[in-house]
């Protein structure tokens, strides 16, 4: 992790918590590598929800997200020995594994989605009904979440993962740079384009975020 990010985290209370979490994760990984099954159970318990959410937001499908989450943990378990805490937090490393699996999954299922996209082009009644509402009202009604989820799936995978990591997982630019393994300028550009594209898709769906 870059020194500036390290000191930036230290100055906030949340930063202390984050550092504490990093420390605990690193200890648990060490215990796992020594064959401690309960340490692995604890790691699974701590990260299942976050990984499942990333998978769900990326695929938009609960079953696929569940299967992918299992694949992620299986791969992490098998490659735990390759994790180096000096290169970043365990959560960041795990998110990176998740991202790679999601991209693999996206490529594998591309053909299936071409068929699905024909169904997606059919008009959706609920979107017409909600057209013209302010997003804060829609948010209160719990509609906006599902509409954003529907719009997220229509984003390209590069833009989608950037938006999910930044705005849903609320990771900082440096963490996203590590996960995506691209320069920070590319991260910024993808997040920006992703947001603008997402707003455009929502507008096409009849949701005006203003």
């Amino acid at each position, binding site marked *: 992790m870059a020194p500036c990010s390290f000191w930036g985290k230290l100055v906030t209370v949340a930063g202390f918590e984050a550092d504490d979490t990093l420390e605990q994760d690193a200890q648990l990984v060490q215990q796992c590598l020594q064959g401690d099954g309960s340490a692995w159970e604890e790691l699974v318990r701590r990260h299942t929800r976050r990984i499942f959410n990333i998978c769900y937001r990326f695929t938009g499908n609960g079953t696929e997200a569940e299967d992918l989450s299992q694949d992620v943990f299986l791969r992490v378990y098998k490659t735990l020995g390759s994790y180096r805490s000096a290169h970043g937090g365990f959560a960041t490393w795990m998110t990176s594994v998740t991202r790679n699996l999601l991209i693999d999954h996206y490529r594998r299922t591309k053909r299936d989605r071409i068929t699905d996209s024909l169904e997606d082009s059919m008009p959706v009644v609920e979107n017409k009904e909600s057209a013209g509402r302010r997003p804060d009202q829609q948010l209160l009604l719990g509609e906006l979440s599902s509409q954003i989820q529907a719009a997220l799936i229509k984003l390209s995978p590069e833009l989608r993962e950037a938006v999910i990591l930044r705005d849903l997982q*609320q990771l900082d630019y440096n963490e996203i740079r590590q996960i995506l393994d691209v320069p920070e300028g590319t991260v910024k550009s993808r997040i920006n384009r992703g947001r603008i594209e997402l707003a455009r898709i929502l507008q096409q769906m009849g949701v005006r975020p*203003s």
Partner: protein
Amino acid sequence: MGTEVGPGAEHLMTWTCENIEARLSDYLDGLLSPDERHEFDMHANSCEDCSQMVASISHLVSGLRTMEQIETPPRLAYSILNQTLGPREAKKGWRGAFGWLSGLASARFAYYGVSVAATLLILLTAAGFSWRKPKLTDLSPVSIYHNADRQAHRVYAHTTKFVSDLRVVYEIQSRLNKDNELPTAPESTVPQSAPGKAPGSTDGSKPTTPRQQNRANGLGKAFEILASEVPVVSAQFCGRLGRRMP
């Protein structure tokens, strides 16, 4: 930061719509320098399209950040552990038999439990169930129906009586207020003898003005109504008056 005015101000307003679009996320994430932010604001405030775009993306980001986390399927963690550590050993004895209860020890389940218990409590109380002397027969549907019916009628009767009492009290109060508003004759003008009447002689009239007499009559009538409609209140009121009067 103040707006520059004068010869140095010509470098302002140099940002185009393309600049705004390219730096929009930097603006929203607070990554612009004060000068850049100022120029961004200057353009966005003067350009309707950019202003709308900034508002739109800003709302979208807020919406994204307030999206709730999806609940994890309950069996997911077990499936992961089964695949990685191998099939989990079945717990034996009491822990195995009541292991499923650990899943109920969540805040959400506690909230649901308390809500259901509170609802049942209210419904049973409304149905006339006695918590001091609970009987099994009180829980039969027929008893619940009869008790609920009785309770409903009782509540209705109490409400009707209360409203009626309130109405009477209000009526009395308004009459008293009305009488108070009428100007009373000053004491110096009160018993004047009729002209042509001998001093000291009486014609049987009372030493009060007719208006005061009317007021006394009105009060008497009001107390009669009060006594008939609200016996308790009127008794207290009259008792208090009686104590004051010699």
